[in-house]
């Protein structure tokens, strides 16, 4: 196709004339150029890239990605050969945790914690510290038991609540949760102190005892002190009332009446405190936790899994660094690119003006 066909057929004559008389290089120039041609062209640099820059960029990007994967792999393999006990996930940690059983009486006794659950069960069942007879005591107990499955978890929870009510106590709070793998039921119970030992013995039979903790705090001294204070206040009030019955001035009467009023309010407060102390001593606080066994799972991850985990974390870290670099360097690169583009455009415009002027 003739170039003119793309433009207009009117210029055919013009084009024919231009082509017919195109300039030909003179002999002298031809000889000069032939001399160049006889010389050896600049050899290609062996270290130089033969690929076009765009392809070089792609190759570099591919190498960078490959390098990051290799680094992740190497780090993953290196990390996975370490101590296998070092990687313990939450559920595994829970499974591995030794059952701790503590019995505290005035913060004193502590049972050994490395005994198997069955041993604990047999040794502690029926040995819960009994409340002292004839003394006011605050009795706190917590038990953790393992039941067979979620059905039994539900049944035992209901049974414990019924038993509590049958003993004259009540359920302060209840939480029953069976999300999937491991079910948990947590009951906070208030049980009359004279029946708490029977209740604990009954609860211990609900499943395998994993832990038991009992704390007893003596309240008798406090109650005695409060009783004495009440007696003193009563005596003081009686004395003031006796003074009031005698012949006193109106000013003195007002003062005595105010004092009596103050003492009576003090007495009421003291009686309230004593009532509270007695109530605390009447009901034991029992925390009962029932759990189902953790479903299989939780096998320690194999070397392959650990390698994958480590490699994944390294890749994530690399990605983080890359994103950071992109955020920091990106604007500079963009500015550089814009500057280059503007420079080229200006150069092109300048060249065009120059050619139009010439």
């Amino acid at each position, binding site marked *: 196709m003739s170039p*003119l066909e793309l433009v207009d057929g009117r210029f055919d004559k013009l084009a024919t004339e231009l*082509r017919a008389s195109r300039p030909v290089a003179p002999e002298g*120039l031809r000889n000069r150029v032939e001399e160049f041609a006889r010389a050896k062209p600049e050899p290609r640099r062996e270290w130089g890239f033969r690929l076009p820059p765009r392809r070089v960029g792609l190759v570099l990007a591919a190498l960078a990605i490959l390098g990051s994967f290799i680094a992740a792999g190497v780090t993953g393999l290196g990390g996975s050969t370490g101590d296998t006990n070092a990687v313990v996930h939450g559920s595994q940690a829970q499974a591995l945790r030794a059952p701790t059983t503590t019995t505290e009486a005035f913060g004193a006794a502590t049972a050994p914690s490395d005994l198997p659950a069955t041993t604990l069960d047999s040794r502690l069942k029926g040995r819960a510290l009994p409340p002292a007879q004839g003394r006011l005591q605050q009795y706190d107990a917590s038990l953790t038991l393992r039941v067979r499955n979620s059905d039994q978890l539900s049944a035992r929870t209901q049974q414990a609540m019924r038993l509590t009510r049958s003993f004259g106590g009540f359920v302060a709070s209840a939480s029953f949760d069976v999300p999937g793998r491991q079910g948990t039921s947590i009951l906070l119970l208030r049980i009359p102190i004279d029946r708490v030992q029977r209740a604990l013995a009954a609860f211990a039979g609900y499943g395998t005892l994993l832990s038991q903790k009992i704390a007893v705090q003596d309240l008798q001294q406090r109650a005695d002190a409060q009783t004495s204070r009440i007696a003193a206040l009563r005596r003081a009030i009686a004395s003031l009332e006796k003074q009031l019955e005698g012949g006193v001035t109106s000013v003195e009467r007002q003062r005595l009446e105010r004092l009596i009023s103050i003492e009576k309010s003090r007495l009421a407060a003291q009686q309230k405190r004593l009532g509270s102390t007695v109530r605390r001593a009447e009901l034991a606080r029992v925390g009962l936790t029932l759990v189902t066994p953790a479903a299989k799972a939780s096998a320690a991850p194999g070397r392959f899994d650990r390698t994958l985990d480590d490699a994944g974390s390294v890749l994530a870290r690399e990605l983080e660094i890359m994103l950071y670099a992109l955020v920091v360097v990106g604007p500079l690169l963009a500015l550089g690119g814009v500057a280059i583009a503007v420079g080229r455009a200006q150069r092109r415009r300048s060249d065009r003006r120059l050619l*139009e002027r010439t």
Partner: protein
Amino acid sequence: MKAKASAEDFAEAAKRHLDDVHAFLVYLTGDRAVAEDLTAETFARALERWHRYDPRRGGARTWLCQLARSTALDHFRAEDRRRRREGRYAVAELRESAEPVFGEELSPALERALAQLSAAEREVVALRIVLELDGEGAARVLGISTTACSTRLSRALAKLEKEVSAGVAA
């Protein structure tokens, strides 16, 4: 795989495309003597850069014309600086020469008309009409789009014809 640009290739390319490069530079500069110097300079540069030439990205003629244009632009810039410095207009003086520049057999009207065109107009005429490069190749040499190249050619030819008609009428 990229074909190797060897010494033999360069010799062959220089021999085959010397007239093309020379003709392009004659049209671009409007001065035979300058065109000869620039042609020699172009081939000297081509020899140095021959290892960069990639046949897959275009023919040797296109590559040599790109190089020739770049060489000519360097010359124009240098001339421009010199003229500004000296306050003289060398090109205008040269154009007053009676010697035919663009071709021995060109009609005087066409010769004058070509001289009236700007270098930018003459270069597109040279590439598309005289050297018969296709639109894509010419656009690559000029560093513009194919459409822009066609538009520029159309305007240049229209102007050329107008100048020829005016010259004949005179």
